[in-house]
């Protein structure tokens, strides 16, 4: 097939007038049919509702934090309360939102369909992981309701074990349980991707979304147990005083830092990699082009996952690790930045010679590219040893982290939700409103976090409840931005909810995308495919799609 042998066919309007009579949503009725479902799509919807709930809880705490920081004085709440706010914000957002967001919702929904399977390898384990998520979530909420926890999301010892009277063990138990939910999801994805691909779906025909989730799953399965061990040690230290981290008993507080960051640095990639997968799908679809350098993008995901395990000590450059080990970890950190740079340029060059349209998911994806570039480059500031000394533990870190996680991950998540919303629900959302939301989010985000880079270089420490008055102007700007950002997040909640009932019928393939998920009805059948598909083309083969559509038109006509 040569590149120019097809012209755009005038396709008939694919949007059928009604939602298909039988689909996964109405296949069985009643709450119990949802609570005991083994259908990966229904579990994905359960997750989507759950993480949205927790996202707005975490967001509410973020709002309270920004509100307190409007003035330099500690005037809205007491120090302890403020500390509980940022601890809850961190714990909820990281463990209950960012880690499960894309894998547990979009990944759960899409991976089996993308590879031509009827479900994940272990449907019941999949449901179990959702229950574990909620049990962990309830423990975390219990810690909040009982009076909160003020360790920060890092549970740093000896603060968490000897010097706090809050509900540390309850919150840690919550995170421990959520960790198993994450391990099970990862395990399920790995087995599914290895064992359940349809005939012809070779590894190098996999959509990049599958590759990036695969890489993230490796991290989940190998990294999360270390977090679990660390939290058990914290709980034992707190309850019976075993002394692993306590210097007065011969323990080593730095050991905690090593163990914790051995999970928590790879965890950053658990959070961002699936988002990168979404961006690959979206950019390819709306520029109607195969992702530039497919293999490089696929392997860079795996490279990030593997390198990601060897950079944890860059969180400890100022903690008295030896100068020479600091050198090694700085070098490795620089190396792990390279695959991310590769991806950015591959995405940009996917646009080249494309036929680009600017639907909402694409706007979010562009937002991702800009913000993730800033987030990634500021990561290089922190990986550079001498620079890290001045910048670490300040608002520079806060800004960097939010650029990667919120600017990157959340933008990708929103891109993905908008992109696959027609497939998941069978309905379209209002286009102009969704574009407005994307733009609002982008502006609000920059207004919130750009001032924090400057605050950081000025030296304002993070987790400060009150601060010297010279930092106020920038903090006011940041809080104003957070307000705009909040509006940007509320909008999708409203119009996506509205679209469930009133949205236009989407049809099977509203974006004319190539993935297998777009070749089946929207919303899909419970069993996804009536017959197991045979895959005879590469991922993102738009010529194949046009050929196929042309044939269908001929057949129907």
């Amino acid at each position, binding site marked *: 097939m040569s590149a*120019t042998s*097809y012209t755009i066919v005038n396709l008939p309007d694919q949007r059928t007038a009604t939602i298909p009579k039988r689909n996964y949503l109405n296949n069985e009725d009643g709450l119990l049919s949802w609570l005991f479902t083994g259908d990966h799509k229904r579990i994905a919807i359960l997750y989507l509702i759950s993480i949205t709930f927790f996202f707005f809880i975490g967001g509410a705490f973020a709002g309270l934090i920004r509100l307190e920081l409007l003035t330099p004085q*500690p005037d809205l709440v007491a*120090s302890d309360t403020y*500390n509980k706010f940022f601890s809850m914000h961190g714990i909820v957002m990281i463990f209950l939102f960012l880690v499960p967001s894309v894998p547990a919702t979009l990944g759960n929904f899409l991976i089996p369909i993308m590879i031509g399977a009827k479900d994940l390898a272990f449907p019941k384990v999949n449901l179990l992981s959702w229950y574990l998520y909620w049990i962990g979530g309830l423990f975390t909420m219990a810690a909040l309701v009982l009076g909160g926890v003020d360790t920060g999301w890092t549970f*740093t010892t*000896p*603060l968490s074990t000897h010097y*706090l009277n809050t509900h540390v063990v309850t919150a840690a138990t919550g995170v421990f349980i959520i960790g198993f939910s994450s391990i099970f999801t990862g395990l399920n994805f790995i087995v599914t991707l290895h064992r359940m691909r349809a005939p012809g779906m070779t590894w190098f025909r996999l959509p990049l979304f599958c590759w990036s989730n695969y890489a993230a799953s490796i991290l989940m399965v190998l990294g999360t147990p270390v977090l679990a061990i660390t939290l058990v040690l914290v709980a034992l230290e707190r309850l019976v005083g075993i002394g692993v981290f306590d*210097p*007065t008993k011969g323990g*080593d*507080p730095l050991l905690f830092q090593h163990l914790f960051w051995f999970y928590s640095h790879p965890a950053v990639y658990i959070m961002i990699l699936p988002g990168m997968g979404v961006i690959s799908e979206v950019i390819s679809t709306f*520029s109607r*082009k195969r992702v*530039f*350098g*497919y293999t490089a993008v696929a392997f860079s995901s795996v490279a990030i996952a593997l390198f990601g395990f060897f950079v944890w000590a860059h969180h400890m*450059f*100022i*903690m*008295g690790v030896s*100068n020479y080990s600091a050198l090694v970890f*700085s*070098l490795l950190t*620089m*190396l792990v*930045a*390279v695959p991310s*740079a*590769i991806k950015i*340029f591959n995405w940009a*060059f996917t*646009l*080249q*010679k*494309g*036929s*680009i*349209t600017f639907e909402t998911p694409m706007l979010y994806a562009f937002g991702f590219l*800009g913000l993730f570039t800033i987030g990634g*480059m*500021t990561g*290089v*500031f922190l*990986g*550079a040893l*001498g620079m*890290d*000394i*001045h910048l670490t*533990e*300040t608002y520079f870190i806060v800004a960097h982290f939010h650029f990667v996680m919120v600017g990157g991950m959340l933008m990708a998540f929103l891109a993905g939700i908008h992109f696959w919303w027609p497939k998941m629900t069978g309905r379209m959302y209002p286009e102009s409103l969704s574009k407005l939301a994307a733009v609002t989010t982008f502006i609000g985000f920059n207004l919130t976090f750009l001032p924090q880079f400057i605050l950081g270089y*000025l*030296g304002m*420490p993070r987790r400060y409840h009150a601060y010297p008055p*010279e930092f106020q*102007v920038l903090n006011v700007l940041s809080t104003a931005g957070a307000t705009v950002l909040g509006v940007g997040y509320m909008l999708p909640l409203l119009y996506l909810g509205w679209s469930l009932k009133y949205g236009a019928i989407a049809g099977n393939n509203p974006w004319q995308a190539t993935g297998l998920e777009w070749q089946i009805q929207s919303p899909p059948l419970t069993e996804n495919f009536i017959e197991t598909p045979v895959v005879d083309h590469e991922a993102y083969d*738009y*010529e194949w799609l046009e050929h196929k559509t042309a044939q269908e038109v001929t057949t129907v006509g």
Partner: protein
Amino acid sequence: MHISPVLWQFLVKWLNASALFPREASTIAPYADALYFFLLLITVVGLTLVGILIFGFSIRYRKEKHPVAVQVEGSTLLEATWTIIPLALFLIVFVWGALLYFRIYNPPTNAMNIYVVGKQWMWKAEHAGGQHEINALHVPTGIPVQLTMISQDVFHSFSIPDFRVKREVIPGRYSTVWFQATTPGTYHIFCTQYCGTNHSAMIGEVTVLTPDDYAKWTQESTSGMSLAQNGERLFASMGCNACHSGSAAARGPNLAGVYGSKLQLTNGSQVLVNDAYLRDAILNPSQHITAGYAPIMPTYQGQISEDGLIDLVEYIKAMQTNYRVQQTLTTSTSNQAAPTTPGVVKP
């Protein structure tokens, strides 16, 4: 990076006056800022490049203008380019950052030492001359100052943004940071590691004085007892001198001149005696039995504060009576001490 000195001076002056940039008040600060500007530059260039690519392609290849996409597989040359160029840039940043790190964390040998104890929620500074300050630190310009820091409870982190230095203050372990202040004035000291309820109130102020003013301040604020003198009193009151008497018949090794020497232990290993070792030998004596002595020293864990430990260590450091003579006199008791010149061999 070459930049005209006049322009640089102008830039620094302007930046120092700007509310968007911290003051440059130590010898390190200009070095840190140079790297910062380099990083800022490559970030802006990178971001502009990505922006140009995205906007350029979006305009050039939008659907109205370019209705049929041309499928391209990839390009090894292009991909190699954007692998190698970022890699090269990041390696430059790595080397530059590493050089700065060594500059910031390797103190000059002539640095003057001040102890800092971090505790919830205050900084306590102790000068060798016996001056004590809380949430304040007085230092002279033009002299390298090394801080030897320890935490009495949780992790804290000692940060002076206008000096561009910071170091974690760790429970149970000495950590050090050094700087040489250049401009008299007062600057913030922040605790940057979250340490509980009043974390954000753990703010101090470093006052930089000219050497003359500093000498005046030292005279006026002394308590009359140096740290070593406090340590001597503590040494006697805790009964240390009963065993560490320095005589041949003593049950404990002679401590004179031990600081900076290499000590042979019963378990066969050799250790360099520094602040950290002395502190640990007082708290966990059973783990550090000097060769030739019985493991009879009790632990002083929980009986002595970090401040007290600092006084004791300072006292032991100051015991520089004629080391070689002592060694000859007490060969049977401190026989394994390696011959070194005390006070010169430092960690």
